């Protein structure tokens, strides 16, 4: 065994173990996998947002070269619907509307892209050709393309049984207390805003391969998933009725997810079911246009809010009314996003004593909407941090001072908010001060003046945010309607020569878990990083797991590993005690070495590992051989990352083009395991936040056609759209998990959008702009500037 390697443990920016295969073209993404005898699926999709399917004629298509089979919804009478994983209750206690989501459309198509038929053929091209030859007669129905249209009197019903297109009408907080607080307010600020609909657009399009072994009755699904065990549970138990021991789900290398690959999608069920029917593997890979039309979209909230303040600018009460778009069907976690992941965050970092929020979820004839990086928390943060800026402007208070005055103070933790959550730790003043200094907030007016001399409008914006990660505990979320536990599983498998394989139920699709999780083992057990491998993404290898979303992997998955390592160390100490003829209590363990306290008697990690598997001299009566432990960890609370983002923009008045010139993020993500990876996560999250704020618009027309269904129409941030991003961390430890970690995957996308828009509004302050909706495109800003030119000239 090598010497202890402290520079690879917790806190070291070690280079990633996974990089070599990705840089050499040796990654194995789903579409890179080919099974013997494989066929290809193409999905025929509805071109209409809302239409009755009168007839489907597959005769001509079936006769085309290479076609193996064509299936429609009528061929799947025994299959269950695609389930929703979280049941929300209405204000009156009744459960939400939960209409059937068939794998292939039955009777009606409900959005452009809804799957109507599946063609299986010998080649990809033959499958696509045949799909085009299927003749579907549609009776086109009026569409409810927007929430406004869906809620209008007499609106077309997306689901015949769901009156008014309302999925649920939910609330949180004490209404009477809230109203009483408003009655005492010195000032009430009213505000309306939209959180724009986004398309996640992981660079790898979704793909799935179904395989079936007739000799064992075993199904295998290879899929682009963030949580293969969840897919096995949802698809096996609810849709295809395949028991877990006959269904293996593999999520190999996955090219980004950002939430969109959490959910169980129809195509996974189609290829798995068809593979069983045909006795041949079936592969489906989305084209990018299909991704736009079928990957669950994100955000899409319309909100009215009122903030009550006293004469000193202290927040007294917040009342929020939000409409949340669900799309045409309930995606896996769609219902939890605008409720328990959004409204529970509406206290933010402030001491607002009462918050009352009402959320109405609405069906529309659009792609289902679900979690996208941040999921509810960006919507809450955008609302709060815009509202605070508006409140400052309308009371004449400084933007920083109003925040400072309302911060939850450091001595108030654990802090119980009026909307259910209890924050365990944080230091909002420290992250604020550090960000102000790094961004040189004090020197901004000089930069504004300098920009003005160049004919540019310069603005600065701030956001001080909190979010909640590692959703938990299982018993609490269960009582709130979650239909799954939210623990995580880790196995530490010590091999006879001392190297370690980690099996984790989390999944890495860019986060670098193969490195970060290995660092935990190196730090605790003293095994060099090169001798630790992390295995994830295969239900046949990993005992169980809930996967990766909500920045949970380290806080929940890492904690499970710590628990498993505790068991390993406890057993290894007993073996060491036996070998050194000492009592267990006297054996100390420190990163690879067992020592009898106060003596020079030691045993190395490798000696203990070998003894565990070659138990010749071994306490066999009291201890089993082997060194392989599994732990399930159920968190006691959420974790609460927070921090401060500052954005500085320049606007070219002639064109309305906004350039982000500086971006500063100071985040508290708890203990940092690999600073290099944390920085990368924040930079990536900020890029998506800037994209939401300035560029990305998912647009439907009134007929429900998705107008922005390609990279030519939907503006993804490119290298030249983004600034260098300054990232720093300020740590307060999470108090309730063994690593003190909070999570870093989403902070960038949560904290940044309001900082950007606050900066844009600041840059336009001479134009009387109170708010500008996202994305603040050049056309929108040019319109504002142009419309107020005469007024400016007249002054």
């Amino acid at each position, binding site marked *: 065994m090598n010497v202890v390697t402290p520079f690879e443990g917790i806190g070291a*920016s070690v*280079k*990633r173990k*996974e*990089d*070599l*295969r*990705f*840089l*050499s*073209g*040796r*990654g*194995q*993404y789903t*579409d*890179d996998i*080919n099974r013997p005898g494989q066929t290809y699926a193409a999905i025929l999709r509805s071109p209409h947002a809302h239409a009755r399917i009168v007839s489907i004629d597959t005769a001509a298509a079936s006769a085309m070269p290479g076609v193996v089979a064509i299936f429609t919804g009528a061929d799947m009478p025994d299959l269950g619907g695609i389930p929703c994983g979280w049941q929300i209750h209405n204000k009156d206690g009744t459960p939400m509307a939960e209409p059937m989501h068939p794998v292939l459309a039955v009777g009606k198509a409900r959005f452009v892209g809804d799957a109507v038929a599946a063609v299986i053929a010998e080649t990809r*091209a033959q499958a696509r050709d045949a799909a085009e030859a299927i003749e579907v007669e549609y009776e086109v129905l009026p569409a409810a393309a927007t929430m406004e249209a869906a809620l209008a009197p007499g609106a077309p019903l997306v689901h015949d049984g769901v009156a008014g297109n309302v999925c649920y009408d939910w609330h949180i907080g004490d209404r009477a207390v809230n109203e009483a607080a408003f009655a005492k307010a010195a000032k009430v600020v009213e505000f309306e805003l939209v959180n724009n609909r986004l398309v996640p*657009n*992981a*660079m*790898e*399009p979704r793909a799935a391969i179904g395989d079936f072994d007739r000799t064992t009755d075993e199904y295998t699904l290879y899929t682009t998933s963030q949580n293969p065990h969840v897919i096995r549970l949802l698809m096996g138990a609810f849709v295809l009725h395949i028991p877990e021991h006959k269904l293996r789900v593999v999520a190999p*290398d*996955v*090219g*980004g997810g*950002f939430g969109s690959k959490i959910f169980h999608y129809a195509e996974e069920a189609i290829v798995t079911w068809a593979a069983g029917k045909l006795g041949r593997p079936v592969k489906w890979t989305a*084209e*990018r*246009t299909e991704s736009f039309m079928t990957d669950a979209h994100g955000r899409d909230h319309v909100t009215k809010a009122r903030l009550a303040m006293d004469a000193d600018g202290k927040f007294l009460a917040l009342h929020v009314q939000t409409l949340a778009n669900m799309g045409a069907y309930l995606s896996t976690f769609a219902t939890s996003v605008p409720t328990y992941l959004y409204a529970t965050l509406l206290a933010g970092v402030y001491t607002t004593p009462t918050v009352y929020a009402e959320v109405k979820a609405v069906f529309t004839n659009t792609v289902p909407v679900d979690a996208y990086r941040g999921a509810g928390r960006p919507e809450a943060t955008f609302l709060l941090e815009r509202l605070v800026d508006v409140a400052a402007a309308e009371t004449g208070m400084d933007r920083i001072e109003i925040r400072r005055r309302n911060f939850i103070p450091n001595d108030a933790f654990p802090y119980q908010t009026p909307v259910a959550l209890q924050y365990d730790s944080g230091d909002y003043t420290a992250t604020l001060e550090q960000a102000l200094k790094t961004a040189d907030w004090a020197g901004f007016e000089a930069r504004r003046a300098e920009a003005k001399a160049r004919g540019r409008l310069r603005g600065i914006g701030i956001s001080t945010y909190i979010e909640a990660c590692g959703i938990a505990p299982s018993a609490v979320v269960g009582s709130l309607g979650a239909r799954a536990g939210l623990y995580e599983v880790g196995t530490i498998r010590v091999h006879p020569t001392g190297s370690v394989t980690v099996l984790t139920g989390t999944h890495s*699709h*860019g*986060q*670098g878990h193969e490195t970060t999780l290995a660092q935990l083992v190196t730090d605790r057990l003293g095994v060099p990083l090169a001798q630790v491998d992390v295995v994830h993404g295969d239900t046949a290898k990993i005992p169980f797991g809930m996967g990766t979303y909500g920045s949970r992997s380290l806080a929940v998955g890492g904690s499970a590993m710590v628990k498993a390592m505790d068991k390993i160390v406890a057993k290894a100490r007993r073996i060491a005690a036996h070998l050194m003829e000492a009592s267990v209590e006297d054996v100390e363990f420190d990163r690879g070495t067992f020592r009898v306290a106060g003596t020079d008697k030691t045993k190395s990690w490798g000696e203990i590992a070998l003894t565990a598997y070659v138990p010749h001299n071994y306490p066999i009566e009291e201890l089993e051989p082997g060194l392989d432990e599994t732990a399930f960890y159920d968190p006691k609370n959420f974790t609460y990352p927070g921090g401060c983002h500052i954005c500085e923009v320049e606007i070219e008045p002639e064109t309305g083009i906004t350039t982000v010139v500086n971006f500063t993020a100071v985040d508290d993500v708890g203990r940092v395991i690999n*600073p*290099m*990876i944390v*920085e*990368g996560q924040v*930079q*990536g*999250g*900020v*890029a*998506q936040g800037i994209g939401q704020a300035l560029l990305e618009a998912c647009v439907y027309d009134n007929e429900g056609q998705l107008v922005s269904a*390609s*990279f*030519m129409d939907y503006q*993804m*941030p*490119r*290298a*030249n759209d*983004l600034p*260098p*991003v300054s990232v720093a961390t300020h740590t307060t430890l999470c108090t309730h998990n063994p690593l003190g970690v909070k999570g870093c995957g989403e902070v*960038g996308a949560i904290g940044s959008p309001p900082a950007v828009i606050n900066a844009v509004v600041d840059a336009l302050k001479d134009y009387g702009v109170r708010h500008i909706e996202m994305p603040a495109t050049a056309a929108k800003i040019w319109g504002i500037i142009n419309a107020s030119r005469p007024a400016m000239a007249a002054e």
Partner: protein
Amino acid sequence: MPQVTLTVNGKTSTVEVEGRTLLVELLREKLRLTGTHVGCDTSQCGACVVHVDGESVKACTILALQANGSQVTTIEGLAKPDGTLHPMQEAFREYHALQCGFCTPGMVMSAIDLVKKHPDGLSEKEIREGLEGNLCRCTGYHNIVKAIAAAQEVMHGRAQALAPAAE
């Protein structure tokens, strides 16, 4: 079916293709070189960039038949036979310029061509402009830009070894 003969990463192959087969389909499905990825259907994302006769090309944008007689280099052909990485590959690792790895092959191939075409060196702004044809959803490009800036010094012989990333 028509035949196409081309040399990929030094190995010459003759393959039957349909007239409509794209170069990227030939690479991925006929030659099983799956390091070259497909991220879109409108030639916007750049995940499929390879070198055809030394020039970076989006392999989803040319037909396999158009590559007849060409020398093609893919991400699999960049490292030396002994496994030594190309300086651009090494820089991407050193500067944490990749996360999920899906855009990475195209990004690396584009970056090499970009650097080769600018022997006098590229500024940060020029690198950002030069990456216009490549999308990355994970990194925010920050570290990709730094990696390319460092790699160009090695590629043009101005530095013996890659400058290490700051801790």
